């Protein structure tokens, strides 16, 4: 063996001595074994000082052996994988593990910040609320940075997380949290009963407290019984055992959150594998067998390294064969604590003394004491003499007032046990107090959840098995599984007697919340200052708000609060329990959805063709759309876009507009239906015709627009804007299913069925003739403006053709089945060659719609009415429609509303910017003369200047007025003219031509 693990017992434990593992702590190399946690390996190497406390930077050691650990927090791993505040007590040891202590400078051993202890008299609870107020400016400059630097224990990596995460769903009849005696018994009963079972264990081995405390079950040694139980469960096809998995939360409808640390026990996850996986487990029933947490007793110096929970000491000795101390004193107020004395003696360690707060102890323990040759002192520990290197001496106040001192290098403490009431309390159920065990037990658990065993306050081994087994059997029955559950495992119940001791008066700081440095006197101070509700206590002292969420401190804290305020503990009550039960990496909640996979990506049918053309793409919603198609030699986007616009206006161009929402509206009442959802009439639309339609919300504000065509008596083809496609479908289904169920109409989204292209420009018809079957009549007479019909293409392909124009040119939109979309783009290029056809992107599309004064997203902003947009005349007065009544409210028809108007700088060379505000010329801009703003702008190749649309007070009445564009953000002020919003071909001759 390479390492000298001085505190490792020669034999025993569940570590694999054949696999020696080297690891580093604060740069020093140590060795441990497979099966160790970082904490147990440190214990085996005699390392006691592992961290510095939050506020006073006091030396801290290892207090527990589980996820409740408040002190032994380290930065695990390095570089981009550094994980701050990692509990050494749950970190599984692996070859090359690298950990560093936190919150100290320059070193753990010599921490200058320990000077804070000198200011301890001032650094009491809430001191910062009373000072740092003068002068005001100093807060951000001096006080706060200092406080922020001091606060927080570990350092985050500060680099992107290189590991992967994913999320998955699991379904079962019964999910079980914890694999101790109660959990295993529950799994056996439920599994035998035929239930689908998921057993979650946060540890990397099954067994829970049995691993440390052993015992005899069904006449077998605990370890053997566990092995058999696991074997039986593993053989059941519908039982899934998940180790390294913590059930952290319960949500509505029997949904449970669990985190699986898939590869945290390796230096880095293997290729193609994730670091952690988030599980959403859907279960009909849940058995909480999460056990209980041993609680400390608050006394002076209770945070000295070497002071450890009695049960944790047993874990280290029995499970890990590592000895935290050589000469151990035990301070207990209950029977269970004595097991640590038994364990120590069995392991050949010295027991210095047992300090028992109770008046008398059992004969068995008396004889143990005499055999072990140690005294039993009746009283309480009220002080610890020691330092960063551990405990030296313990002072005891004996019942009756005398004092005693005990020489020891370790102190095991047992203040009784607190059932883990987290999961059962996450739906705001408040745990109830039980005097016999002086602890809170689950009450008001979420539907379908039941606690069993120690988690339910049943501390005897026999009782744990019984409760677990019965809960498992009941859960299976409730889930409708009727199989036989076989025989219940049996064991004896140990005696349990406890005399509550929460706080022992003494000299020096006595810590309630060790991680947040909250002392007993802080709790008393809070009470004195009126923070008497437990929630106030928590918020004022930060008790229980550290990374352990107060698992070892909350109950003691409110017990002390109860004492000083003269209330009982149940009267004082608990704070609200909140998930997650253990902290969960943010990356795990995100799973696969990060970086480019944050959201799905939608691609148009011609996407890959456009990419080949070198198109620049823009994100619109989930879509990637071609924004423009740069050509060699073009110096910027504006040059490319201007070329595209000129090509369309002067010849012909095409653009993939498949992103528009497309909906088939079928049925005899289709027309009547559309009359109710649009402000204008559609039942009167002739077959073979298209019409522009405008939809309002029920509150009278414009919702969406688009052209809708009538392809048959009982078949309309409706289009929506790209942005609103999904929402309009939902809205129409609401109208169909909820508002107007009497109408015979059917809706189907065909957005993905059709690839749709706009073909625009004076040569559009010439190009189209090359594409469609020569038999099709495309003449202005045969297929006039706003015509819509099915056509056959050369080669027989069926398509839909619409004579509609967004650009203001003679234009068509043609739809082909989506898998022909790419072919259509290629064919348009081939057929269009003689006409100089030019593909154009969304920028050119935008330029041409602004030149034509068509409104779009920036104008349909959820606050504009049809009249604001200049479309008020479309509102039918002959029919009811969604939004009709509310649209008439006084403020929505007020004369001074901001309405759409054209805007152009008086200086033709001037660039116009969206977001600039409009104020009367010559006036100083202020809240009272802020009359509107520029909504959309473009450089118009036709007018050879920047133009735009805006929403301006009484804008349409002020055509020709010169006003001021005010843009303080960009430091610009300039004159603009309000003008007609249709800049190009106002009488529309070109699109009809």
């Amino acid at each position, binding site marked *: 063996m390479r390492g000298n693990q001085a505190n490792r017992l020669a034999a025993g434990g569940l570590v694999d001595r054949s696999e020696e593992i080297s690891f580093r702590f604060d740069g020093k190399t140590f060795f441990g074994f497979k099966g160790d946690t970082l904490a147990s390996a440190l214990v085996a190497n005699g390392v006691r000082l592992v961290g510095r406390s939050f506020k006073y930077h006091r030396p801290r050691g290892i207090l527990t052996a589980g996820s409740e650990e408040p002190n032994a927090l380290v930065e695990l791993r390095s570089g981009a994988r550094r994980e701050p505040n990692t509990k050494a007590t749950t970190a599984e040891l692996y070859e090359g593990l690298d950990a560093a202590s936190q919150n100290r400078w320059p070193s753990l051993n010599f921490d200058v910040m320990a000077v804070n202890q000198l200011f301890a008299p001032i650094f009491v609870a809430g001191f910062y*609320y009373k000072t740092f107020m003068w002068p005001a400016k100093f807060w951000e400059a001096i006080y706060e940075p200092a406080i922020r630097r001091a606060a927080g224990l570990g350092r985050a990596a500060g*680099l*992107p997380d290189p590991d992967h995460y994913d999320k998955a769903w699991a379904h079962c009849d019964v999910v079980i949290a914890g694999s101790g005696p109660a959990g295993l018994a529950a799994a056996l009963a439920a599994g035998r009963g035929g239930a689908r079972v998921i057993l979650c264990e946060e540890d990397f081995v099954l067994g829970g407290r049995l691993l440390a405390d052993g015992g005899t079950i069904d006449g077998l040694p605990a370890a053997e019984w566990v092995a058999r139980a696991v074997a039986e469960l593993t053989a059941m096809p519908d039982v899934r055992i998940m180790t390294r998995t913590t059930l952290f939360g319960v949500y509505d409808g029997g949904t449970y959150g669990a985190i699986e640390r898939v590869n945290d026990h390796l230096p880095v996850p293997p290729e193609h594998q994730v670091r952690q996986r988030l599980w959403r487990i859907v279960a009909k029933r849940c058995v909480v067998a999460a056990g209980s947490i041993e609680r400390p007793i608050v006394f002076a110096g209770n945070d000295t390294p070497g002071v450890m929970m009695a049960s944790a000491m047993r874990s280290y000795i029995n499970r890990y064969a590592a000895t935290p101390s050589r000469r151990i004193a035990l301070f207990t107020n209950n029977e269970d604590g004595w097991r640590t004395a038994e364990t120590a003696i069995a392991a050949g360690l010295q027991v210095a003394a047992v300090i028992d707060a109770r008046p008398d102890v059992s004969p068995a323990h008396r004889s143990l004491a005499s055999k072990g040759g140690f005294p039993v002192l009746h009283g309480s520990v009220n002080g610890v003499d020691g330092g960063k290197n551990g405990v030296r001496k313990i002072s005891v106040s004996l019942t009756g007032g005398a004092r005693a001192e005990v020489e020891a290098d370790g102190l095991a403490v047992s203040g009784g046990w607190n059932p883990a009431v987290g999961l059962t309390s996450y739906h705001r159920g408040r745990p109830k107090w039980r005097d016999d065990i002086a602890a809170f037990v689950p009450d008001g658990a979420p539907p379908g959840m039941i606690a069993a065993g120690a988690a339910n306050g049943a501390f005897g081994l026999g009782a744990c098995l019984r409760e677990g087994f019965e809960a498992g059997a009941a859960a299976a029955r409730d889930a409708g599984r009727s199989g036989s559950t076989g025989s219940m495992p049996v064991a004896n119940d140990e005696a349990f007697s406890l005399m509550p001791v929460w706080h022992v008066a003494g000299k020096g700081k006595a810590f309630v919340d060790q991680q947040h440095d909250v002392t007993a006197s802080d709790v008393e101070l809070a009470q004195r200052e009126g923070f008497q509700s437990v929630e106030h206590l928590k918020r004022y002292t930060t008790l229980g708000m550290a990374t352990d969420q107060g698992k070892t401190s909350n109950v003691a804290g409110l017990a002390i609060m109860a004492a000083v305020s003269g209330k009982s503990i149940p009267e004082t009550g608990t704070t609200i329990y909140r998930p997650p039960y253990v*902290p969960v990496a*943010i990356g795990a909640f995100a799973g696969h959805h990060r970086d480019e996979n944050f959201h799905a990506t939608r691609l148009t049918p011609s996407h890959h063709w456009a990419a080949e053309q070198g198109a620049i793409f823009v994100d619109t919603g989930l879509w990637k759309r071609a924004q423009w198609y740069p050509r060699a030699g073009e110096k910027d986007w504006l040059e490319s876009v201007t070329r595209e616009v000129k090509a369309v206006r002067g010849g012909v161009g095409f653009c993939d507009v498949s992103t528009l929402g497309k909906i088939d509206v079928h049925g005899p009442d289709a027309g009547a239906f559309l009359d109710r959802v649009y402000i204008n009439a559609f039942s009167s639309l002739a077959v073979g015709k298209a019409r522009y339609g405008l939809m309002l919300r*029920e509150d009278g504000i414009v919702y969406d627009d688009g052209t809708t065509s009538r392809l048959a008596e009982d078949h309309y083809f409706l289009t929506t804007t790209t942005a609103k496609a999904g929402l309009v479908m939902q809205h129409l289904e609401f109208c169909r299913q909820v508002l107007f169920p009497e109408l015979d109409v059917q809706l189907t989204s065909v957005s993905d069925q059709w690839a749709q292209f706009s073909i625009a420009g004076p040569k559009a018809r010439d190009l189209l003739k090359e594409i469609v079957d020569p038999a099709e009549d495309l003449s202005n007479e045969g297929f006039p403006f706003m015509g819509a019909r099915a056509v056959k293409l050369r080669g027989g392909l069926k398509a839909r053709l619409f004579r509609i124009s967004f650009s203001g040119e003679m234009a068509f939109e043609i739809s082909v089945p989506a898998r022909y979309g790419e072919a259509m783009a290629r064919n348009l290029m081939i057929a269009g060659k003689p006409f100089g056809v030019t593909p154009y992107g969304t920028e050119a599309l935008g330029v041409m719609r602004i030149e034509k004064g068509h409104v779009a997203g920036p104008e349909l902003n959820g606050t504009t009415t049809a009249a604001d947009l200049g479309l008020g005349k479309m509102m039918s007065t002959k029919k009811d429609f969604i939004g009709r009544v509310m649209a008439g*409210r006084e403020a929505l028809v007020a004369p001074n509303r901001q309405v759409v108007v054209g805007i152009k700088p008086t200086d033709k060379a001037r660039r116009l910017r969206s977001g600039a505000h409009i104020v009367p010329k010559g006036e100083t801009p202020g809240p009272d003369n*802020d009359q509107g703003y520029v909504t959309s702008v473009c450089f118009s190749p036709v007018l050879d200047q920047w133009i735009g649309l805006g929403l301006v007070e009484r804008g349409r009445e002020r055509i020709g007025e010169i006003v001021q564009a005010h843009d303080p953000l960009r430091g610009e002020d300039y004159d603009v003219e309000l003008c007609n919003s249709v800049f190009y071909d106002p009488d529309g001759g070109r699109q009809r031509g």
Partner: protein
Amino acid sequence: MKYSIFSLARAALSGHKNWKPTWRDAAPKDRYDVVIIGGGGHGLATAWFLASEFGIRNVAVLEKGWIGSGNAGRNTTIIRSNYGLPGNTGFYELSMKLWERMEQDLNYNAMVSQRGVINLYHSDAQRDAYARRGNTMRINGIDAELLDQAALKKMMPFLNFDHARFPVQGGLLQRRGGTARHDAVVWGYAHAASELGVDIIQNCEVTGFTRDANGKVTGVETSRGKIGAGKVGMAVAGSSSRVAAMAGLRLPIESHVLQAFVSEAIKPLLPNVMTFGAGHFYVSQSDKGGLVFGGDIDGYNSYAQRGNLPVVEDVCEGGMALIPMIGRVRLLRQWGGIMDMSMDGTPIIDKSPVDGLYINAGWCYGGFKATPGSGLVFAHLLARDESHKEAALFRLDRFQRGAMIDEKGQGAQPNLH
């Protein structure tokens, strides 16, 4: 008693044995000039302004549980005045100015931290909308800057610029925005109001209103008996509909759950408050070191003060998409508050149709930053029976008149605001 480093040092000498309660835990009297329902930030601030600005000191604040137990103690502590519509812009700036002098006003350190609030944009359309909003702010004398990507890279190099689904293009920055310690705001107003004689009555739940023959509200019935009042103001965001119903009123409000999250405490990582423009995520780091973050409401009516997993995932996805370095930072605690979601996303501060009853409601998830401003304008309304000029548009009848103040343009669909 006066708080300062000196009183603190003095107290230290006597082992802090002489501190008095931060506020008097009062028992109800028979009658008050003004009774305020709700011992949250807004209610306590209203009481303090009534006493300090308007000289009305015979005031009681009634709290069902412990003060600050509602949204005042559950929010993500952000303060800002970056609103774009008339009515909001001026009001939130009034509030911001009051934040800037709060410690001195109250002699209590609420840790007001003007570290800057930045709203990130990811598209030209978003940039234009922010430009419009930022210009509105500047026109109203509020600080605002439009940053481009280069400036952002300098300021926040840790954002995801290289592998983003929706690349960050820039942001609208308000440097005066930031955070404050939410509980301390509650305690500070309680402390200062109590010093001026206001009665703060905890564990006192209002169960009904007493009315005279003309229907005028003359007081409240509570779990601690009848209490007479010249005027009654309600500041119970989250429960507004329930309290209003006791007076026979229906409000344009729905109660929704908004979740919030805090991570384990870590050393300083994030310098300011940032809001993702392409997903539901905003975050700041508390002085204690935890990342305090949130996103969108769960989306369904709820009084449960807890939410569900889809939103937790959605928010963390947003966080990872924007700041990939937080992947290994652990989420420590999730909780939920009840939001008064109004029909246009804007609050209501007005007389109610019931004589003697005044409403302060509909804060959606923007209530915390409004705390001081809300206190001042509500106190003004209660004291003078007319709206403060910066709250003149927060009228209850604006929906009937069609004068909504809809920043998001979502209309009468509360869960979209």
